[in-house]
């Protein structure tokens, strides 16, 4: 264990820690912002399914090119995630199954295929595939500068898209029927929202892994939502909370021995979410209980007067 001062010093001057923290921050900002739309559209678990669906894409990208360059693997992950999303929509549209079941089908089947490919590669004599299984739990420690730059670029592009289509996305989230009938949100915009989730997943896989990606998209939003009712504020807050949790998790995993980065990020994110749920001034559970208690102590007449107001 190192002291806090040492950690802060390393955070700025140590290349490895700085890279990891930066990578985690980029991931946190992009998944917080992009996850907001998924959560508001009641598609919180979409990220979970698409993250699992990306695994065979990563394996196939490596098998096809023999390269483990981040860009190659990200393209593989993105294509497979997209395909998964497409299948999901098709299942919901053409069968009597719910989105819920369709998510599970895509998640489990794609992931099973990914495991099959991983195992096939592990039994090959060449050791080049080593490290692909790091996508299961993520390995922030393996992040390098170029990779962080690529993810930062991708994240910035996605957030730029959010800013450009802010009005349309907002209407789509809160009143999809109105958005469709007025032509504000044509079919491609819904595809765009799903694509943004795919981008967030692609950014996050390397760091937090397939399994924990769900929380990366949902956690910051659940936390941010407690503090504001305004979409713009929630978006900024979700990005900030995601980044905060990312950096905290990265630092904790370096400071404490044998704590993998992915789970560390998710656990600090959970703390952020729990604190927000419990203590956020207006919507928090504790302030609410305090208010009720106070109200219970005042005379009923006053309560009625307040209710009438």
């Amino acid at each position, binding site marked *: 264990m190192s002291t806090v001062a040492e950690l802060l010093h390393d955070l700025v001057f140590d290349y490895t820690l700085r890279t990891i923290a930066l990578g985690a921050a980029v991931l946190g900002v992009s998944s917080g912002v992009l996850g907001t739309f998924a959560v508001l559209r009641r598609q919180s*678990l979409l990220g979970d399914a698409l993250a699992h669906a990306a695994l065979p894409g990563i394996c196939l990208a490596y098998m096809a090119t023999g390269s483990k360059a981040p860009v190659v693997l990200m393209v593989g992950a993105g294509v497979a995630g997209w395909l998964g999303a497409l299948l999901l929509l098709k299942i919901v549209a053409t069968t009597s199954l719910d989105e819920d079941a369709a998510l599970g089908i895509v998640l489990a089947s794609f992931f099973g295929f990914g*495991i099959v490919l991983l195992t096939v590669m592990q039994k090959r004599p060449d050791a080049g595939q080593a490290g692909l299984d790091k996508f299961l739990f993520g390995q922030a420690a393996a992040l390098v500068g170029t990779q962080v730059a690529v993810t930062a670029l991708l994240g910035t592009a996605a957030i730029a898209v959010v800013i450009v289509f802010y009005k349309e996305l907002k209407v789509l989230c809160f009143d999809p029927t109105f958005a469709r009938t007025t032509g504000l949100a044509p079919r491609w915009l819904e595809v765009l929202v799903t694509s943004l989730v795919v981008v967030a997943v692609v950014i996050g896989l390397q760091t937090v892994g397939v399994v924990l990606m769900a929380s990366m998209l949902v956690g910051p*939003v659940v936390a941010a939502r*407690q503090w504001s009712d305004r979409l713009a504020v929630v978006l900024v807050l979700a990005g900030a909370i995601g980044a905060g949790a990312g950096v905290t998790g990265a630092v904790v995993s370096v400071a404490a021995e044998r704590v993998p980065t992915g789970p560390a990020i998710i656990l600090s994110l959970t703390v952020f979410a729990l604190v927000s749920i419990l203590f956020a001034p207006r919507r928090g559970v504790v302030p609410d209980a305090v208010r009720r208690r106070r109200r219970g102590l005042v005379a009923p007449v006053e309560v009625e007067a307040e209710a009438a107001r």
Partner: protein
Amino acid sequence: MSYGLAMVLTGAGVAVACGVLGTFLVLRRMAMVADAISHAILPGLVAGYWLANGPSLAAGLLGAVAAALLMVGFVELLTRSGLVAGDAAIGVAFPALFALGTVLITRHFSGVHLDADAILYGNIEFAGLDVWRVGGRVLGPRPVWVGAGLALANTALVVALFKELKVSTFDPGLAATVGLSPAAVQIALMTAVAFTAAGAFSAVGAVLAVSFFIVPAATAYLWTDRLPRMVALSAAFGAASAVLGFTAAVRADTSVAGAMACAAGVLFGLSWLFAPKAGLVPRARQLARQRLEFAAETLAVHLMTHTGTPAEAEECTLSHLGEHLRWNDTWATAVVAEAVRRGWAVRDGERLRVTEAGRGVAAM
């Protein structure tokens, strides 16, 4: 018992156990709850092993059920409070517990009894090695017994609570009114799912358990609308996935658990394409058939309208259909062939004549 047979039997047992419960999860729109539970039990398993000082089945099961119920309760509480939507609550809760479990394992159990990757896809490959001995007697591979026990227990549960499960699944309001307590049924179902997930966990891992819970049940739903048949089919599809997956894995020398999940996915895909009523291909073919039949009726109407009029010689020819009905040549020929096959029209070179039967159809 050969190692291969042990793997197949373990997989099939777990698949049946998951399949009978999965039916109700899919119908209640709780498929992703199975995913969440399969992951959330991890810290409970670890805590159980830790308390029991080793991989004890009973301690692991109890810990897992406790963790699962804790998560379900937490999600329920959050959803009820109106602060967080149900799916978002699930999305926060289960990764948190899973992350906690992973940290506990890497810190305290590293490489001993639990391995991080095995959490996700299990180690069914070792099913035959884990022999159960009771008082010097060798009873065979333990995972096989666990799988069979879970399958039996869940089948018994579903049979015993069939009425309650059915009513509370399709009409919770009615269930509450007639005193069948949907909440109690829900808790029973969640407990059974947690037990099954925990038992399946060491054999097939978290994700394959999800596959067995959801995919065979969803496949069964494409074949039938009747609940008892769906339960049976779900179990059968699960067991078939286990057998097929094992066979394929041996051939390709790859992960047995992953191949079983793939097989379940393939069975779903095939059913989605070809199931008699819900399949895409039968539905497309029926649509094409109806289209052709309707066109043949249109032809009969067309012919009857012009029969006996001065324009008959011109209107009632094959080549004229393109102009009048906007049919291209291939389609027109196909429609005429269909009308002739049905005995609604006769073809005499270029000339077409409506028959008595054709008049009947046209007049309808």
